[in-house]
Structure formats: C-alpha cells, structure tokens
C-alpha cells in the first residue's frame, strides 16, 4: 500500500520523528516555517538531562523521575514521564554518536552540570549552545535520508489546517508557501505536529519570533483538545530588549552563579537564605516568585525596578569560557558589560509552555491520525518544567511519535490515495477563501500593534501572579481584540514574499490560544507549579489534581478535567527549603 506520513516542524521533535520514520523505510514530507537549522530549538543553552552519573554522585533514573514529577507539582501523568526518563541516557549516547560536541570530563567522558530542582549533576551540555548542537546533528541525519530519497523537505512552508476525512481521521494538511503565498493541500495517512511553543502570545519572551503557537491553535479550532494551557513557565533570568527578552540560562547558576540584591547596603542572597537545601538551584517557578516578592513586595529590586543581580564575577574566567561562553557573549553583545567582572542584571520572562495539544501515551491527539510531539504537546512536565528536561522530552516524543504513527498507518484499511480528490480540493479552497479575506482586510488597525496590546495584557495579568478579576478582564480584552481584528489593514503589498498576511493569520491563532490560557487559569482555583493565585495559595489535590482539557466548539471554549495517573509516586507537599528526603518522611 502507498503510505505517506507528514511531519510539520523541523525542531528537535519533528526531526527525530522524521528520522524514526525514514529509518523504518517510511517516506516523509517534512514542513517547516524556517530552514530546520533555524528552528527555535537552536536557542537552548543550558543542556539536556539524563542520569548518566559520570560524576560518581550516585544519580539514578529513579531520582531523575522523582525530581521531575515533584518539580512538576504532580500534574504529569507518571507512566510516560518514567519511560522518557529511562530513555534519556540512551538518547544522550545516541546524540553523542551523531557527533554532538558535548563537553567532556578530563578523562573524555560526558561532562555533566547541575540545573534547578535537582541535587545531582545530570545535565549534559555543549558549551552554552546545547540546543543548537543537538538540532544540527538531527538536521544532518535528516539530510542523509533526504539524500537517500526518503525525505522531502518543504522549508519556508507554513501549515495552515488539517484535512479530515468523513470518519474524522486526519488525512493530510493544507500549507502555504511563504515565498509565493500559494496554497496547496498534501495528502497523507498520518500527520505529526511538532510545531513548538506559543511564547509570542505574551508579546516579548525568551522565544523565537516564529513561536506563535498558530499550528496548535489551528488544530484546536478543528477539534484537537488542548491540555493544561494555563501552565506557562516564567524563567527567573533574562535581559530586556525591545525586540526580545534574552535568556540568561539556568546553567549560569548551575556553574556557581549567585542571585542577590542589596538589603541594608549589603548583598542579600535571598534564595540561599530562604531555600537552604537548594539555594540558587531551586526550580524556576520558585525562583521567579522569590524574585517577584523581593522586587514587588519588598521593593528591593535594583534601582527600584524588577531586576536582581546574577553574579558570576567570583568564578574562574577560564571555566566561564569553557562552559558558559555562549550566554556570556549574548550578555556582552546586548548589554555591553563583561559578566566576568560585573554582576549581570536580570529579570523574569515568559519562557516555556507546559501545556499543549492533548496526546495519549502514543503521542496521538484525540483526532485519529494526528500526532503531536515536543513543546506543542503537554505530556512530560506537569505544572512546571525542570531545566534541561525539555530537550530530552522533545527528542523522546519524536522517538515515540514516529514509530507509533507508522503503526497506526499500517493498521489503516484505506490509503490516502484511495480518498476522493475532492476532499483535498475542498480543504484547499477553504484556505484560499481565508487568504482572500485577509488580503481584503483594509481597516485601520495594525496587526503588529494589536499583537503588542495582546502581549502587554497577557504579561501583566496571566504570568507570575494571577487574580480572578484580572483574568476575567483579560479575557474580555482578548475578545475586544478579536473584534478589532476585523478592522485590521494589511496594506497593499503584493502576495509575493508578503509577511503581513501570514502574520495576521497567526494573530488569530494567538488570540484564540490566549483565551485558552487565560480561561484555564481563571477556572483553576489553586496554586500549583507555575500557576499561582494569592487568593488560593495552596495546592488543592482533592479538587485540582486534574489535567485541564479545552475544546473548541462554535467559537466557544469548553473545559473538562481528567484525573492524573499517579501510579508510581504518591503526591507529597512540594518544598525546597529542605531536602527531598524530609518531604518523603513527612508523608509517612
């Protein structure tokens, strides 16, 4: 039978899915907004987690699993997380064989460092550009399969919508060339979405500009369930820019960086004081809230602003160059100071989405034949992600999605080539009509300014600290923006190479997902991981140890909740002022 699988996304998750399929002889069409090598995964600095235990600290996959579940405040389904953690060391060895230039110990083994929420050094890294090195290695393997005729790449093509057959199965996609703006429909027997995170919904974040979440939003509007949208990670340390908030990796603290502000004229290392067991290595949600408290409640931020010092000036400059050069360069380039000499000034920024498309343990969404992998799905991080766990989750999800998609395809009674062409013509015609409608928008609103307004509201009201009245107002605002959207003016530019029209389409997706995030947060009356409400400061397992599931129905968003599989580790109170062992004893 003539089989075809489509992968949308050329980041870590999409490339690994593609490799898995090609390795099994399956032909793949691979789509990406940008040449795969320029995908957002290049930004990852700190490293990738696996309990390789090359420092004799006695780390184990069980410890890594427990840290991940505990760090995620028990919201993740445990079986897939356990499987991922157990696969992690093998993933590192594989990436090493593919030529990733991981840092080495003096004897030539894989070097490891510590990231937040862990007591062990289990983060493997390639300088401070780990994501770049990982994606290049996978891109090279895909190029090899391209050379062998198994993979056809479509770079600078944008996924627009799913093609669903009359049984509700996913049978292909519509796409648009970002050069000519022409629209095409591609048929397939299964589709894997690996389209990354939605950081741009918050205007500026640590994310790349293509991270609008449009692909996930589009699938959502066609019936895919979106899970745990309200869980958005705010990273404690970034530097401000008008175009982007640039991340200052957690690995800076992992290598000995200390966070402080002046109090009574002296440096005050508040993380070390408040969390003696973990110090500067507390997880991100904890560090971010502590910084918020210091800057907003205690008004001790640098110069009265929401900024704190992140200090590595006491470290050996040679070691900094070997292990942190990538980030230190960014700081020097954009701020102008040398962190080897002067403490850096950083502040929290939107960084990562724990939520995403709902998938089962085979990475399949609720739409048969539609799979999802990587940051665009929700499976591996619960209510808060540990540093270094996302790279491994993206690669692992690709390792599952590829083979599972193939298994699914093999079980199909009909091939995509047996379907009526009308199905694809119709899908294409629908997108053509949408395109025409966007070109016809000639009102007064500028889409980029509308986007900025959305970002400002989301940033103000749906990040570190959340209040129900403000969440309600934000949702009203988003709906107002959706009305004003109809009055956008896209200008008179021709179709060729036009960037305003595709951006305007993405903006609708961002607005839709912004509602999913905001309404999910409004409903969840508790505090868990990255989701914090001062009016409901405690975790409430009785009512909220549940996955949020959002569905789209006739322009409305419906919510339902699903119990979490906690079959391995019983939920216990999460605290970082004491060692984890103490929290376990308290439970007994």
């Amino acid at each position: 039978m003539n089989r075809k699988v489509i992968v949308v996304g050329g980041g870590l998750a999409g490339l690994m899915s593609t490799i898995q399929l090609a390795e099994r002889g399956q032909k793949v069409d691979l789509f990406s907004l940008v040449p795969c090598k320029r995908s957002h995964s290049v930004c990852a600095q700190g490293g990738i987690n696996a309990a390789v235990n090359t420092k004799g600290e006695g780390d184990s996959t069980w410890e890594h699993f427990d840290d991940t579940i505990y760090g995620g405040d028990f919201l993740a389904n445990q079986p897939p997380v356990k499987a991922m953690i157990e696969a992690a060391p093998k993933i590192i060895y594989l990436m090493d064989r593919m030529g990733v230039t991981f840092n080495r110990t003096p004897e030539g083994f894989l070097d490891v460092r510590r990231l937040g929420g862990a007591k062990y050094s289990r983060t493997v890294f390639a300088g401070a550009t780990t994501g770049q090195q990982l994606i290049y290695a996978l891109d090279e393997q895909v190029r090899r399969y391209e050379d062998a005729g198994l993979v056809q790449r479509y770079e600078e093509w944008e996924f627009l919508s799913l093609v669903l057959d009359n049984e509700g199965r996913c049978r292909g996609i519509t796409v648009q060339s970002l050069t000519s703006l022409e629209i095409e429909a591609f048929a397939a027997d299964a589709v894997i979405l690996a389209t990354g995170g939605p950081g741009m919904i918050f205007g500026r974040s640590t994310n790349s500009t293509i991270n609008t979440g449009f692909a996930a939003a589009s699938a959502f509007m066609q019936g895919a369930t979106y899970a745990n949208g309200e869980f958005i990670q705010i990273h404690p340390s970034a530097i401000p820019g008008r175009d982007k908030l640039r991340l200052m990796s957690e690995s800076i603290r992992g290598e000995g960086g200390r966070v402080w502000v002046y109090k009574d004229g002296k440096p005050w290392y508040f993380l070390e004081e408040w969390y003696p067991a973990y110090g500067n290595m507390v997880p991100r949600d904890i560090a971010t809230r502590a910084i918020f408290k210091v800057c907003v409640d205690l008004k001790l931020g640098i110069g009265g602003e929401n900024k704190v010092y992140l200090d590595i000036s006491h470290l050996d400059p040679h070691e900094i160059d070997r292990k942190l050069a990538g980030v230190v360069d960014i700081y020097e380039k954009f701020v102008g100071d040398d962190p080897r000499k002067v403490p850096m000034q950083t502040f929290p920024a939107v960084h990562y989405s724990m939520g995403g498309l709902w998938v089962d343990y085979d990475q399949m969404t609720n739409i048969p034949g539609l799979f999802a992998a990587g940051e665009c799905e929700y499976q591996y991080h619960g209510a808060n992600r540990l540093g270094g766990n996302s790279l491994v989750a993206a690669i692992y999800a690709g390792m599952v999605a590829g083979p599972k998609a193939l298994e699914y395809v093999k079980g199909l009674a009909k091939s995509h080539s047996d379907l009526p062409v009308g199905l694809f013509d119709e899908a294409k015609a629908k997108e053509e009509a949408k395109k025409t409608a966007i070109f016809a928008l000639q009102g007064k609103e500028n889409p980029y300014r509308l986007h900025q307004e959305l970002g400002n509201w989301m940033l103000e009201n749906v990040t570190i600290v959340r209040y129900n009245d403000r969440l309600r107002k934000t949702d009203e605002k988003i709906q107002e923006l959706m009305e004003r959207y109809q009055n956008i003016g896209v200008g008179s530019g021709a179709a060729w190479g036009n960037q305003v029209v595709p951006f305007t389409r993405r903006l609708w997706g961002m607005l839709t997902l912004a509602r999913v995030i905001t309404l999910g947060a409004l409903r969840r009356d508790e505090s868990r991981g990255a989701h914090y409400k001062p009016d409901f400061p405690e975790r409430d397992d009785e009512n909220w140890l549940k996955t949020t599931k959002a569905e789209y129905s006739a322009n409305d968003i419906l919510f339902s909740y699903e119990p979490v599989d906690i079959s391995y580790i019983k939920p216990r109170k999460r605290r970082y002022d004491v060692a984890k062992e103490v929290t376990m004893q308290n439970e007994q």
Partner: protein
Amino acid sequence: MSNETPKEVALLIKRCPNPQATAYWEEFKVPYYPKMNVVSALMEIQKNPINARGESATPVAWDCNCLEEVCGACTMLINGRVRQACSTLVDMLSQPIRLAPLSKFSLVRDLVVDRQVMFTNLRKVKAWIEIDGTYDMGPGPNISQKVQEQAYELSKCMTCGSCLEVCPNVNSKSKFIGPAAIAQVELMNSHPIGAQQKEARLQALMGEGGIAECGNAQNCVKACPKNIPLTRSIARLNRATTVQGLKNWLNR
C-alpha cells in the same frame, strides 16, 4: 556624533518587491531607544509602515527568528558590511543606516534572500555522521577535551552565509561551495565515527566547485560572526585532499 541622545533613527532600506523588479532605496525614520538593535528598528516599521516623507509604504520584508545570533536568519548588509541585524546595535552605526539584502544569493523580496544553496552544499559534501541506526548501542566513543574544544568551534556554524557573501570566489560564474561547507567537512572528519567516511567527503571536496576554487582571499575568517577558524579548516583540508589525490593516483 554629538553627545545628545538622538530621538530618531534614520534607515535607508533597499527595496525590491520581487526578483524581476528593479530595486530602489526608501528612507524611514523610527523612534530611538537606548541599546536598540537593527531588528527593533525594523519592528518599529512593521508597527508603523510610513516612510520618511510621510507616505504609507508597503511593509518591509526581512527575516529573523532567534534574535540572539544563533539561528543565522537575520543576516543582511548593514552599512555595506555583512552582519546579523539582531546583534548589531544602532548606537554603533553611522546614520542613515543602510540595509540591503545579501548579494550572493537569489533575492526573494526586500531584505529576504534564498539561502537553500548552502544546505544543498552540505548535502554535496555529506556533512553527516553515518551511524548504524538510532537503536541503543550503549555509550558513544570517548573523546578528549582537546578534540571536543576544536570540534565545538566548528559546530557553531549557523549557515548564515556571511562567509559566502565576502568571498570573491563565490559568484554567479562559479560553483564554489564556499568556506562554511568546507569547515563542516573538517568537523565530520574529526569525529571518531565520522572519520570512517572521511574519504567520501574529501572526494566530494575535490570535485567541481570544491576546495580548489578557494583563492585564499581570507575574507571569510574575518566576516564569520562566530569566529570559526575557517581558513585553518581550508588549509588542513587542502593538505588532506592533496594526500587523497595522491592515493587515488596510486590506486588507479
């Protein structure tokens, strides 16, 4: 320049709606902010596409993605020099800031060019490691810190095209693959597993458009934003291909 804080930034942008059209220059003025980069200036134009004469302009097309100089997308000519628009700060430039697309690649629109040829070149030189498969084979080879450090320098290449842009031997009449792909051959050949396919890559470099077309102008190494020792790679591979050529001749 005076010590007063400027209120505006003047940009002169080379515009061209498509490859068949004739290019023209259009001036824009955008608000100034301390430490702003060229990307932020371009973003201001997106939000207010009005040119310096107060006429509404078609929005400027330009590429960007990571905004922290690791993806390579926003490479363009800034005041005549090849640079990334994200890491180029306005304060360091004389005004009006002249922005033009890379000249060695085919134009799409305004500042956007098509750099697919660089990926095709990576394919030509087989810039990948031939692993048996992705199944579990246990730990990879032991590698010394020294070898890792040298390889890491080369692995930072973001295929931005700066080195091709400044190379006199990369032009419409030549098929020269350029320095970036050559350095990737050195990277792959220096890996213990990659070394097993060393000869195939050297053969590729000895073909048309290969290393022999380097004229040793040494512009590439100066233009590389990641300070990759491109000329060192070229020199090493020059020797290696000579040896390979001799072997080929002896084994005829």
